[in-house]
C-alpha cells in the first residue's frame, strides 16, 4: 500500500465535488446555527416565561445526545410524516445540535456582561429588546468569538456524518473511492488533508479576528 497518486488523479473531480458539498453544507449550517444559537441563547438568558422552559430543555437534551442518532431520528422519522429532502434534514440536524452548543456559549457571554450596562441602556430610554440587540448581543458575540469559531470547526467536522443520509460529501467520496479501488491510505488521507486545510483556514480566520479585537480594545483603552 502507500499513497497512490494515479488513483488520486483519476478521482480528483469526485473529491472536488465532495469538498464543494462539504463546504456548502458547512457554510449554510454555520450561518443558520449561529443565528439560531443567538436566538435560543437570548431566550435562555432573558428567561422568557414558558418559552425558556422549552428552550432550556432543548439545549440540555440536544447537547447530551449523539448527533448521529439525531440525524437518523430526523431523517427516518420526519420523512414518514412529510416529504423533506435529505439536504434540508441534514442542515436541520446540524443546526439543532450545534446551535444548542452555540446557544449555551452565547448565554454564558450574555451573563458575563456587567448588569450596569443594561441599566445604563434602560435609563437612556432603550427598550428591553433594543438593549439586547444593540448592546448585549454584539458584546456577547465578540466576547465569545473564540468559542464560536471552535464551534465552526466542529460543524465542519460534523458534516461528515451526513454521508449516512445519502449526502455525497467529502467523507462519503473517500469511502466510495476506497471501496472502489481498495486503497485506504490514498482514499482517506486525501479527504483528511482537505478537512485539515479547512480547519487551518478556520484557525487562521480566528487569529485574524483575535488581532482585530485586540486592536479595537487597545483603541478603547487608550
Amino acid at each position, binding site marked *: 500500500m502507500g499513497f497512490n497518486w494515479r488513483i488520486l488523479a483519476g478521482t480528483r473531480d469526485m473529491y472536488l465535488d465532495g469538498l464543494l458539498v462539504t463546504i456548502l453544507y458547512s457554510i449554510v449550517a454555520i450561518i443558520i446555527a449561529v443565528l439560531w444559537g443567538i436566538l435560543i441563547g437570548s431566550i435562555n438568558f432573558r428567561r422568557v416565561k414558558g418559552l425558556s422552559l422549552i428552550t432550556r430543555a432543548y439545549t*440540555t*437534551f440536544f447537547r*447530551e*445526545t*449523539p*448527533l*448521529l*442518532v*439525531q440525524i*437518523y*431520528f430526523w*431523517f*427516518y*422519522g420526519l420523512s*414518514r410524516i412529510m416529504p423533506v429532502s435529505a439536504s434540508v434534514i441534514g442542515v436541520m440536524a446540524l443546526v439543532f445540535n450545534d446551535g444548542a452548543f452555540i446557544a449555551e456559549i452565547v448565554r454564558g457571554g450574555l451573563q458575563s456582561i456587567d448588569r450596569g450596562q443594561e441599566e445604563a441602556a434602560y435609563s437612556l430610554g432603550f427598550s428591553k429588546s433594543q438593549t439586547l440587540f444593540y448592546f448585549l448581543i454584539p458584546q456577547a458575540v465578540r466576547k465569545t468569538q473564540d468559542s464560536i469559531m471552535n464551534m465552526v*470547526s466542529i460543524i465542519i*467536522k*460534523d*458534516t*461528515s*456524518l451526513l*454521508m*449516512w443520509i445519502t449526502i455525497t460529501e467529502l*467523507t462519503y467520496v*473517500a*469511502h466510495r473511492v*476506497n471501496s472502489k479501488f*481498495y486503497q*485506504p*491510505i490514498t*482514499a*482517506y*488521507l486525501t*479527504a*483528511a488533508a482537505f*478537512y*485539515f486545510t*479547512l*480547519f*487551518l483556514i478556520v484557525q487562521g480566520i480566528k487569529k485574524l479576528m483575535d488581532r482585530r479585537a485586540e486592536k479595537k480594545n487597545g483603541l478603547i483603552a487608550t
Partner: protein
Amino acid sequence: MGLSLHDHFTIFFTILIKSGLPLTLKLVLGSFLGACAIGLAGGVIRGLKIPVLDQILGLYAQLCRGIPDMLVLLFFYAVMVYGSTYSISVLAISVIQGAYMQEIIKGGILSIDKGQWEAARAMSLPVPVVLFRIVIPQVMLIAMPALIGQVVLLIKGTSVASTIGCLELTKRGVIAMARFSNALVVYGYILIIFFILCHALTMLGRRVERKVTRKVMGDLYE
C-alpha cells in the same frame, strides 16, 4: 404507528437495554481507558515540554481536532485487517479522544505553579517523584471537571461505531428499524438512553467542579 405496548417493551428493554447497552458501556470503558493512557502519556510529555516529541504531539492534537471522527474510524476500519469491529472502534475513539485528554492534562500541568517544581527539586526529589507524587495529583483535581466533560463527548462519540457494524445501542436500533419501522420511537428511545447516561455524568461533573473550586480556592471561596 401501530406499536403495541408489548412492542414498546421489546424495543426498549429486550433490544436496546439488554443487548445494546452493555456493548455501548464496554465501548465507553475501553476507549476511556485507551484515551486516558494516551492522554496521560502525551500530556506529561507536553507538560514537561520535551523537545521534538512535544511538537509531534501538538500536531497530533491539531489533527484530531481538524479531522472528523467518522473519517478516522472508516480509515482504521479499512486499514486494519485483524480485529473485531469492537476493537477497531475502541482504537479509533481512543486515538481521537486521547488527543483531547492530552491537551487537558497538559493544560493542568502547565497551570501548576513553577515554585512547586523548584521547591521539590531543591529538596533533591527526582523528577518522576515530583511528577507523580506532587504535580499529577493536583492536575487530576484541577482537570477533573474538564475530563468529565470530555467523557460525555466520548460517550456520544461511541455512536459512530454503529456505522462499521459494531452492535452497540445505535446499531441495535438500526436493526430494530427493519422490524418495527417506527423511527420516532426507536431512535427516540436511543436518544433518551444516551441522554440519561450523559446527563448523569454532566451532573456529576458540576458537583465535582464545585468541590474542586472550593478545594483550590480554600477560604477565598464563598
